[in-house]
């Protein structure tokens, strides 16, 4: 018996079983239950499937060694003769990079080279090493043409972006006039470089055909979307593709779209009649999947003398490869974060011969708020205001663009709580005024905000008579703790010890979820589990002859009318299965929903060398109900660390002569290492947003990266008095401004 139950969020929810918490699991800082499998090597990742199967062949991608041109020929003869080589497959339909998640399929090669490092063909051999060696023998003859590799040089050729993740242009009032008339103005331009997701697990896939049915073991964040993209590329029905992604070694957006590894593995496996594995090398991940766009951001703020914003403009230019229309929604937070009657947020896109730019952790905010929150800091200084006070004076009552109420907004509380905990009042008031030996000490803060995104999602729950429960959905866990929070939600509502709840994820045969991205996973998939679990409770209530809200579920029993009945007695050997579907409804449309926070940072800048070391970093966040304090906090730690990298070290360097992404490995693409990360502190403010979801939660996965880098660089300025507007703030940029 499989029942369907659908819940559409048209009204705010009242108190739920998560509030009464009879089982006492929700919100608790529980360990990720799959963690031991991962750290002991027992959780198979994409490439580890079919281990030891002698039938498996290995593919290795050949990438372009030029940045732009037309492929005249691909000479595979030498490679085909190399030891162990089974085939060299040059398929013009093959992808030139990963797919953008919004596209039906990855852009095809079609005889063109559009970026350096673009996949050209795949060599398949009996061993990985043979394939890799033979790949060097493939001769790709390209009629090169002049490529465009430099965003700054192409800024004037940028065009208005197509509306995508947000409207490309969001305006209100008359910015130009208001800015011209403003008592105090600031006009500053910031640049941020391309960045790479750099997840621990390189993109990998294992493909196996059984007749016309394909099984793909992958590493993707959005199962249903990715199945569709793969099927479309291969020209087969979606129903013929089974994707299995139970364990994923990090994504950060880099695995939102199907990647060249899967498409080429599937093509090769079909041609050879054998399973084929492809793992990208680290260098290939940097060159052939996707990146975060570089940005040029002009911020103009006009205020009254007492610091009320009257004019606000954020004009941005980002880049993408020819034909790829995604733009980094750089101004997404600027739309709603601060008040101001006259507003202008624009996005232009420059066509460059660089790797696909697509979503990376908090697309938009992560780089847009570097500029916005630096500009707020610069303006506060100009006005002689404390940066928190300046923000407080511009706290909007409602969404300043369209007047919608906020579903919940605790920005001011986050700033106040953070200020207290960080001893903000005792910060160095003037730049370069506090020194410890060679080190200049400074403090900075920034606001955090991340739009709350919510998607339709389904999950099935089966509860058997012995109290064992299975939660199934094609949702993914990319290392965030999805397995564990879904277990907690189901166990809380059904009144079960957590060990009795098994969670199955990442299988395209299971009910459809939106996957992991945009911080929507916990609330969307979690709400579907909530709905399904409530459906199961309703069934139990029916059997007991009571109303669902008269039942308390606890310790494998149902309590109603002062009578406690074990599940076995109620179910009598039967298994209840309910598929729950959650749909965002009117509350999502009628309110503005976002999570908020505040970051506080103390840095030391070396007065001799300009080296910056982060000493303390505090993030106070409010994102509605926290489902698991530990996994939520860990997400915030991750965001903070990302922010340190964005602020100080991370840059995917483009050789603007050729388009080569020069520093394509983890030795030279500098993510922060442990020594760069101080003791981090995260405080999660209690908040319930009953408008946002049945769980009363909002997205938190990306919140902490939003703005945090600006808190670091605002602290750098406060420490040494050098304001750098070109990210990352490496020492060579600080050095010229330091006293001799």
């Amino acid at each position, binding site marked *: 018996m499989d029942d369907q139950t659908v819940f559409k969020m048209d009204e705010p929810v009242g108190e739920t079983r998560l509030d009464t918490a009879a089982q006492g699991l929700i919100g608790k800082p529980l360990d990720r239950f799959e963690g031991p499998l991962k750290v002991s090597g027992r959780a198979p990742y994409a490439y580890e499937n079919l281990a030891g199967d002698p039938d498996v062949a290995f593919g290795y991608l050949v990438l372009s*060694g*030029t940045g732009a041109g037309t492929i005249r020929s691909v000479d595979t003869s030498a490679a085909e003769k190399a*030891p162990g080589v089974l085939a060299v497959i040059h398929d013009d339909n093959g992808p030139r990079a990963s797919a953008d998640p919004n596209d039906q399929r990855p852009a095809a090669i079609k005889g063109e080279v559009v970026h*350096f490092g673009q996949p050209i063909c795949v060599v398949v051999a009996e061993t990985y*090493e043979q394939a*890799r*060696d033979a790949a*060097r023998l493939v001769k790709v003859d390209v009629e090169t043409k002049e490529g465009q590799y430099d965003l700054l040089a192409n800024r004037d050729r940028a065009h208005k972006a197509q509306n995508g993740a947000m409207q490309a242009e969001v305006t209100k009032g008359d910015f130009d006039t208001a800015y011209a008339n403003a008592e105090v103005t600031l006009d500053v331009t910031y640049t941020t470089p391309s960045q790479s997701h750099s997840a621990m697990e390189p993109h990998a896939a294992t493909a196996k055909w059984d007749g016309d049915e394909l099984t793909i073991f992958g590493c993707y964040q959005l199962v249903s979307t990715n199945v569709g993209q793969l099927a479309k590329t291969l020209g087969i029905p979606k129903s013929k593709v089974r994707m299995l992604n139970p364990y994923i070694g990090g994504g950060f957006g880099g695995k939102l779209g199907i990647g060249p590894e899967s498409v080429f593995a599937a093509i090769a496996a079909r041609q050879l009649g054998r399973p084929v594995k492809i793992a990208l*090398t680290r*260098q290939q991940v940097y060159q052939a999947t996707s990146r975060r766009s570089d940005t040029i951001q002009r911020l103009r703020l006009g205020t009254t003398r007492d610091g009320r914003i009257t004019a606000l403009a954020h004009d941005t230019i980002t880049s993408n490869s020819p034909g790829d229309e995604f733009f980094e929604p750089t101004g997404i937070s600027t739309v709603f974060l601060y008040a101001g009657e006259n507003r202008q947020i624009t996005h232009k896109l420059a066509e460059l011969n660089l790797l696909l730019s697509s979503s990376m952790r908090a697309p938009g905010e992560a780089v847009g708020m570097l500029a916005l929150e630096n500009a707020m800091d610069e303006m506060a200084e100009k006005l002689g205001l404390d940066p928190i006070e300046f923000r407080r004076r511009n706290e909007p009552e409602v969404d300043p663009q369209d007047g919608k109420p906020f579903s919940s907004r605790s920005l001011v509380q986050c700033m106040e709580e953070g200020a207290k905990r960080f001893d903000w009042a005792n910060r160095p008031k003037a730049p370069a005024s506090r020194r410890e030996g*060679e080190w200049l000490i400074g403090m900075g803060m920034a606001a955090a905000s991340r739009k709350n995104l919510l998607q339709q999602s389904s999950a099935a729950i089966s509860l058997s008579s012995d109290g064992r429960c299975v939660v199934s959905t094609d949702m993914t866990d990319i290392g965030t703790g999805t397995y564990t929070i879904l277990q907690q939600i189901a166990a809380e509502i059904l009144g079960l010890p957590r060990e009795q709840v098994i969670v199955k994820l990442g299988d395209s045969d299971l009910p459809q979820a939106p996957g992991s991205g945009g911080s929507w996973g916990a609330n969307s998939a979690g709400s579907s589990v909530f709905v399904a679990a409530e459906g199961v409770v309703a069934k139990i209530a029916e059997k007991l002859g009571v109303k669902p809200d008269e039942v308390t579920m606890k310790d494998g029993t149902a309590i109603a009318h002062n009578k406690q009945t074990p599940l076995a007695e109620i179910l009598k050997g039967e298994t209840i299965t309910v598929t729950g579907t959650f749909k965002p409804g009117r509350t999502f449309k009628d309110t503005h929903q976002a999570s908020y926070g505040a970051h506080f940072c103390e840095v030391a800048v070396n007065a*001799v*060398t*300009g*080296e910056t*070391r982060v000493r303390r970093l505090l993030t106070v966040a409010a994102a509605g109900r926290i489902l698991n304090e530990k996994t939520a906090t860990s997400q915030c730690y991750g965001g903070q660390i990302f922010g340190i990298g964005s602020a*100080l*070290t991370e840059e995917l*360097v483009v*050789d603007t*002569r*050729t388009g*080569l992404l*020069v*520093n*394509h*490995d983890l*030795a*030279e693409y*500098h993510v*922060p*290492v*442990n*020594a*760069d990360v101080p003791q981090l502190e995260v405080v999660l403010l209690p908040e319930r947003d009953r408008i946002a979801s049945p769980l009363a939660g909002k997205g938190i996965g990306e919140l902490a990266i939003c703005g945090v880098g600006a808190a670091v660089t605002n602290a750098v300025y406060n420490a040494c008095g050098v304001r750098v507007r070109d990210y990352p703030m*490496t*020492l*060579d940029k600080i*050095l*010229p401004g330091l006293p001799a």
Partner: protein
Amino acid sequence: MKSFAYERASDPKAAAAIASRAHARFIAGGTNLLDLMKIQVETPETLVDITRLPLKEIAEADGGLSIGALVTNSDLAADERVRRDYEVLSRALLAGASGQLRNKATTGGNFLQRTRCSYFYETNARCNKREPGSGCDAMNGFNRILAILGTSDKCIASHPSDMAVAMRALDAEVETLKSDGSTRRLTLPELYRLPGDTPERDTNLEAGELITAVRLPKPLGGTHIYRKVRDRASYAFALVSVAAVIGVENGRMETIRLAFGGIGTMPWRDARVEEALIGEAPSAALFAKAADILLTEAKGHGENDFKIPLMRRVLPAVLREATGVAA
């Protein structure tokens, strides 16, 4: 990766003999060689595994130390005698790589690691060190970590080692065994070559010549400093570094050893700098002069221009720290 023959040497002489064959390489820690083989920048036909050779001792010799070539970077950094008498070496080792790499990397191998120039590692780029005569894409490209001293118009690759910088300050010498069974000792300026017209040759070692040990002369006493400036706090190569051993007696600098990393195509040392300082009373003006002398011939190539003003600040800071004289 190309297929290769693997041979495990039973003794150092056998190792040197096997390695004298064409396209042979010794392998010990493999922390650089294996990476290079994966991307086929190195394509040896034979790997001679020397990890079981008896070259793992640190012994006292001639008032100094004899360090076996296979002593790991971790063990060398932790050795009590090294920490006591050659602190600059211990500090330099610990400033390099990561704990995992130091556990594998050996003393001999550390000397022989290849440059970290991005274009050396990218086989689609031009690199005279990797492919003689092909050109140098680093010259006007991304050369942030590359050299400003000892360069040629063929190559500006910096030597990446921290350990070798401290070794150079300490006047270390390497002992080698050639394939014909003869041995020799080389100072570091004798071991390393400037790129000149032959950047493909990093060292003067002959085919099959095996580093068996490193000799450190008698301890110098004095204050030991290894200062490394880098883009992140760990696991990054030096932008600039200074290895210093400085002894002050009666207000005068009577011991001066200064070597430099990140700026040279080999672990750098400049006798003129030490001559300017030796026997003098420490002063800010003198320190600035020392930096000027060091950087007289320095030449930036765009992205690495900042190393010149950076070193102009770092060397005096090291001298201030060593002598206690404030600027």
